[in-house]
Every structure is written in structure tokens, then in C-alpha cells.
């Protein structure tokens, strides 16, 4: 099992390096540079040249790449080209917002999805199942962006219950913090829940039909134990996979939701920095996001070993 985990970790490090390199060269292949975006309409050619030199953009690409790799390994992230803030600060301020939204969003999503999926599977073709299916269908078809705008109008403008602009840090109290991210979290959580619900339902239906479930009935295992111990444990494997992959949906959704609720999270930082060709910020933000993905996938892989002995033992022989 340890060899399996070690292999996954080594694999993750390689993926990260690949991402870093791709991002570095990919960004510079996009037409347009940061200097013009910064200086705007009034820029003189002299000012453009001077700024390029100051930012080191006049160096050959391989030299820039080696410098940058060195900086990354020593955790020297540099400064934003546009606002001159430290990239470390920008990302450190943005990340908690996005991760708060994502974490609460996932929690809300799972709290909705798992029961809904179970209800759908156990009361198949009953009204409750139809309700869950229609709900899930709506969730899948409505992007977070749209859900966010609807929530803002209903809970912000009409009911005036919750703020719809900005983020209150956790240090200012749990309740204000929670209030400021509840709507964005619901907006990213609902589409996430929809995907997981559908997976939960179909996986559980499949296991409920399996031969060993009939055996369990035959040997007199009670309904509750049958469902939660025998069926759920097997049905959860594809659900965990999907829940992990769908995290991409949550982080992707948070880009647009942050825009709707005017929260300067990672998503907005990323999009703005790409549009402004703010290379240092884009690179670090992408590395952080992909780092989270790689880590979550690693975690999912390791979770398999816990819930599925076949992987645990198979891994030892790999």
C-alpha cells in the first residue's frame, strides 16, 4: 500500500511540473503582452521598452523559464505586473475565499445529493424519485452563474436577507463570514449536487439489483443494514470518483460566481490576470488551482484504498 501511495505522489509531482511548464510557455504564446495592457493608450514606445526591460521580458524565453523555475522552487513568487502587489499576497488573500465557497458548496452539495440519490434509488418511480430527478436535471442544466444571479435577486434585492457584494473574512466572525458566502456556495453547490445525485442514484440502483443483495435478503439481513452496509459501501466507489472529478465544476463555477458576487477569489484573479497578461499572477494561480486538483485526486486515490480492499491489495503487487 505504501508503494502505491508513493507512486501516486511521484506521479503528482511530475504532473505539477508538466502543468508549470505548459502554463509558462502557453501564456507567452498567447498574442498581446502585459506591457501594452498596463500602459494603455498613452504609452510611448520608450516607456514600453523601459517597462519590458524592468520586467525582464526582453530576455530570451529559456532564460526567463530557468529564472522562473528557480524562483518557484524557492517560493519567490514575484510581484503583479499590473498592481505591483506581491503575488504571494494576492493569492493568499484570494485562496481562502474560493476555498470557503468551494468547501461550503461541496458540503451543501453532498448534503443534498446523497439523500436525494438514495431516495431516488429506493423509491424508484415514486413521486419522490421524480422530484429528485427533475431537481437534478434542473441543477445540471443551470450554470452557477445563472443560479447566482437568481439567488442575488431573490435573497438580496427582494427579501434583503443576505449581502450580495463582497466577502467577509472568518476573522470578523463566523456568522458574517457564513452569510457572505452562503449564496455563492449554494450557487456552486447546486449544479455539483445535481451531478452527484444522478451518480448516487444509478450506482445504488445497480448494486441493489446485484446477486449478493438477493443473498442478503435470503439470509435475513434487515433492510436498513442491507441498504447502508452492503449496498452503499459498494455504490459509493463511483460516487467518490465523480464527486472528486466534479470538484472541477465547483472551482470552475466559482470563477463566474465570484464575478456575480464581487468576490476577489482565485477564479476572478485568474481570469483578470489572463486577460491582462499578468504572467506572474496567472502562473502562480494556475499552479495553486492545479495543485489542489492533483492533491484532491491523490486523496481520492488514497480513499479508494480505504473503501476498496481490492485496490489496497492490488496496489502492493503493482
Amino acid at each position, binding site marked *: 500500500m505504501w508503494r502505491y501511495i508513493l507512486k501516486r505522489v511521484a506521479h503528482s509531482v511530475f504532473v505539477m511540473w508538466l502543468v508549470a511548464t505548459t502554463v509558462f510557455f502557453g501564456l507567452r504564446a498567447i498574442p*498581446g503582452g502585459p506591457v501594452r495592457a498596463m500602459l*494603455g493608450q498613452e*504609452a510611448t514606445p520608450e516607456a514600453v521598452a523601459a517597462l519590458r526591460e524592468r520586467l525582464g521580458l526582453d530576455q530570451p524565453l529559456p532564460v526567463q523559464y530557468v529564472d522562473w523555475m528557480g524562483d518557484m522552487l524557492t517560493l519567490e513568487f514575484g510581484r503583479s505586473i499590473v498592481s505591483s502587489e506581491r503575488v504571494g499576497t494576492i493569492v493568499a488573500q484570494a485562496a481562502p475565499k474560493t476555498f470557503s465557497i468551494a468547501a461550503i458548496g461541496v458540503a451543501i452539495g453532498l448534503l443534498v445529493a446523497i439523500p436525494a440519490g438514495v431516495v431516488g434509488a429506493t423509491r424508484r418511480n415514486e413521486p419522490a424519485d421524480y422530484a429528485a430527478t427533475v431537481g437534478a436535471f434542473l441543477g445540471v442544466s443551470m450554470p452557477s452563474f445563472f443560479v447566482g*444571479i437568481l439567488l*442575488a435577486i431573490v435573497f438580496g434585492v427582494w427579501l434583503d436577507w443576505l449581502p450580495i457584494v463582497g466577502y467577509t473574512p472568518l476573522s470578523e466572525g463566523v456568522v458574517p463570514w457564513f452569510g457572505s458566502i452562503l449564496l455563492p456556495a449554494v450557487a456552486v453547490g447546486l449544479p455539483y449536487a445535481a451531478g452527484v445525485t444522478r451518480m448516487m442514484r444509478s450506482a445504488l440502483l445497480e448494486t441493489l439489483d446485484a446477486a449478493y443483495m438477493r443473498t442478503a435478503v435470503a439470509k435475513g439481513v434487515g433492510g436498513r443494514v442491507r441498504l447502508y452496509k452492503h449496498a452503499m459501501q459498494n455504490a459509493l466507489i463511483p460516487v467518490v470518483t465523480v464527486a472528486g472529478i466534479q470538484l472541477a465544476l465547483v472551482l470552475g463555477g466559482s470563477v463566474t460566481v465570484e464575478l456575480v458576487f464581487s468576490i476577489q477569489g482565485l477564479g*476572478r484573479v485568474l481570469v483578470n490576470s489572463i486577460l491582462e497578461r499578468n504572467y506572474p499572477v496567472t502562473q502562480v494561480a494556475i499552479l495553486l488551482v492545479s495543485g489542489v486538483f492533483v492533491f484532491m485526486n491523490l486523496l481520492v486515490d488514497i480513499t479508494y484504498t480505504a473503501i476498496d480492499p481490492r485496490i489496497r491489495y492490488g496496489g502492493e503487487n503493482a
Partner: protein
Amino acid sequence: MASDQISDEELSGPVVDRRTTTKLLAAAGLGGLAGCAGGGGGDATTAASETSEASSTDGNEESTDVATDTPSGDVRGGRLQAGWFTGSIDNLDPPYIGVGQYFQVAANVFSGLVTLNEDLTVRGDLANDWTVENDGATFVFDLREGVTFHDGSAFTAEDVRYTIDRTISQETPAAAKLSSLQPVDDGGVVVDGDYSVTLNFEEPLAPALIYLSRGPGRAATIVSQEAIEEMGAEQYAVEPVGTGPFEVAEHSVGSELVLDAYDDYFETDEEGTALPYLDGVTITPIPEPSSIVNALRSGDIQFANLVPLQNVSQVSDASEVDLLQAPGVNWNGLAMNQTREPFGSRQVRRGIAKLIDTEQFVETAYFGNALAAAGPINAATAWVYREDKPDDQAYAPEEGKQLLEDAGAAGASFSLLTTESDLRAAQAMRQQLNSAGLDVEIEQVTSSTYWDRTDKSNRDFDVTVIGSVGDPDPEQSLWNFYRKDGPWNYVDYQNDEVHQLLGEQRSQLDRDARAETLQELEGLLIADTPHAYLSHQDDLAAMRTEVGGFTHVPYMRNFHTVSLDE
């Protein structure tokens, strides 16, 4: 006003009277503004309203109501929540600011040598008094004593010298405004004691006082040498130290800019109460159009510095929100790159201009929140604006098609470069040109690519919709767009006469003479058609009804006289 010649004596401080100011602003191209914010709705406002069938007149009325709404008694206190229609406020270092929305903020943190009053008379800001000598080429400023920067250090004449020297020697974008100043160390800026400073220009510069004001005059908005050296220029751009009514308490770029009232701010209201009235302003960048409007309606913000054009009707319909509307001091047009065929031919350019129904364009592209333009000079600058501009570009589709056919350019196909923010205008343009038989495609790029492609060193585009976003004096954008080597001469326009007239008008202190020169210049531009002139966009902001005391100077968002009613 028998004579519009402004004498040195009339121009001298401490307060330029309203009559002289009107002339002065007029000379600088701000005449329309004086009329507009004067409370009674002067000539300029009337002219603007009359020519704008689309612009809502109650917007104008509301803004004048607000201007006269001065708070009384104990109105001090409260924190204004403001939304800024941008992703982030990246730079607040005045001479480096290239974005109008940023200097709307900076004008609340910094002071200029002079500033514009609520009724748009020019008065001293950091200057108590000044005299104008040498036929308008020399300005002697007597500075206010006892003014301090937000960090407590004293403001002196040396700060003026440092600021101007920095603007010029660091080749900042704003340096062009002072291009005719003599070398700073060789007579350009002469410091005489702590509280007197003299500026010497090579030649009379008609709009000089305006360029030295807070807000539009970013070239001499006084910065603190001590603070810049202590925190570094990079940090200063984010959390600057000035002498203005508000100090930066905290700035988390992209999330929140917290401004606190500066307790030692030098200015008071007429009753001697210290300004600003507010305890502070919190500015949140809100880049998503529907979000800024929702936030205003829900009360999350009380002031929006811009109203997205597609949301104007939502804002005017909301019960607790007032729309602030003023004629825009800007223009835009269809720029045709003369290094590309067929746009090298004036006949072709004029033919294309004649295919464009500007009234229709304004309706489609800007939801009617703009005036159709016949030339680059806008109605807000009433002293030089005229209704009867030459009609070389007037809508005449058959004539236009004929011109194109004669030039062998009928059915020409080309691409229209645009960014997302101008996409709607681009689509309206394409629709009009294509229905007139041309074959136009839209090419949408990001703004960084856009500036790269249009840059003089590349000129990699066919046509694009571009113009001036906010120049209170027409000369500023015309100077940059149409001089042979002008920095914004994207279309490679080369005309000796225009080039020479641009130089000539700068030295004309006589308003009528200058207006005549500028009109002659405008006539040449309309005939030559480097741009097909399209529109002047209205300046739109919005605030909730509890906000009082705001004066809507077009393009400015000054909060020092704002108060909140409960």
C-alpha cells in the same frame, strides 16, 4: 461678456470670479461644464438636452437638484458604500493613471494646485492665490500654509517641484500635458521660499490651469516624495499618500478600497465646518453589470460610479435609486487604417462614413444613452460646439455607395477589430455597413491584444471603433490623435494643415479666436475622415436616495461634500 480676451489680471487668484471662470473654462474647453453644474441648467445643458432625443431629461434635472442640496447642521458621519464598475483599481499614482475610473478615485485622495468648484468656478486647491504673467506663459502660485500630507508631513513648494519633475523625468503617461513647460531645473519650476512657486511655459498654453487642477490634471497632482521613497513607488501606487479629503486606510486590490476622512484636511464648507462630512468611503470593485445594479437596488452599495448602458432603464425604474446623467465630454468614431487598402483613399473613407446612420447607431449600440456626432467636438464644450457642422459625413447611403463604386471599393470586405467592451458597438456598425453592401467581419480580441494590434508600430487592423474617453478640452484628444507623430495616431493620418493648426490653437488665449481655429480644424477632419464620427456618450452614475450633497461634474466622482441621510 463684451470681450472674451482673458487678461492676466482677471486670471489671477485667489478666486477667479464666475464670469472669468466661464471664459477660462471656455478657453480650456470646459465652458459647457460651467453651465451644466451651475444649478440653473446653463446653455450647455440646454443644448445637450435639446439635441439628445434619447437622453432622459429628468436625469439632468436630478443631477442639478443634487448639486444644490447642501447639507446643514450635524450631517457629519457615516460611511458611504460605493461600487466601482471595474475588476480592480490597480493604480492610484496620479501621473501613471491611464484609466478614468482610477482617477475618479485619486481625486478624492489627492489635491491639485487648483480645482473646480461645485459651480465649476476655478479656485485654489493647494494654491491660495496666483498671478498670470507674460501673456499667459507664466503662472506664479502662492501656496496654502499649514497643509499636511496624510502621513503628517508638511506640504511646501518643494513638493510641487518634485511632483512636476517626477511626472516629466519618469516619462509618465501624463507628461505630455506639460510638454511645453521649460526644463524643470532650468526655469520651468522656480521655488521661492516654502510657499511660492512659479511655472514658466515656452509659450502661452491655453488650457494650462485646467491641466494643473485635481482630477483631469493628473500632471501636477501633488504627491509625497517622502512617502514614495519610504514605501517604494510600487506600494505607493496601491496605497498612496496625498493631501486630499480622504486617506487610504486599507487597499486590498480587487476586493476593497477603504478611504477614511482625513481629519486635518484643509478645506471647510461655507459655514466653516470641516470637510469631508463622511467618516469614510468604502469602494468595492464590481465588474459584472447585473451585480452592480442589484447591489444598488438591495442597498449593498449606495453609489455606483458608472451605470452599465444595458441597465439604465432598471436603474431609472428603481424607486430608491436616482440616475445621474450628464453630457459626456468625449467622442468616438470609426477609425480607418490608412496604411491598409482601400482606406488610403479619402473618397472611400467618406463613402463609408456616409453609409452610417449615426442616430440609429447610437440607439442600437448605446441604448440611446449618447448623442449622435457629426464631428469630434462635443456639445458640453459649448463655446466651440456648433450645430451646423460641415456635412461631408452626413448620412446619405446612395451617395456613399456611389463614392465607393467610383473608387472601385464597392462591396469591399474588411474586418472590424474590437474588444468585448465595445462589442455591441461593433455589431451595430457591422450590421449597418453590411446592409449597405459591404462585407464586414468582427474580430474580437482581449484589450491587451487590442492595444498591441492598434499600436503605431504595428497598425495591424482594418477599422475599429475608438475615440476619446474623457477630455474636458477638445485639444487634448485632437492633439494626440491627429498630429503627424501623435501617440494615438493609429490610422497614420498625415495632414500638414491639421498639424499646424493644432500647434496654433494652443497659444490662443482669446476664446473666439481659439474656437475659430478649432472649428476650422474640425472641418478639415470631417472632410478628410480619418474617423467616421459616431457619438458622444453620456456620463452616467447612480446613487440611492439617502445620499446627499453630491455634485456631478461630468467624469468626476468627488465625495468631500457628500453626506448620508437616515
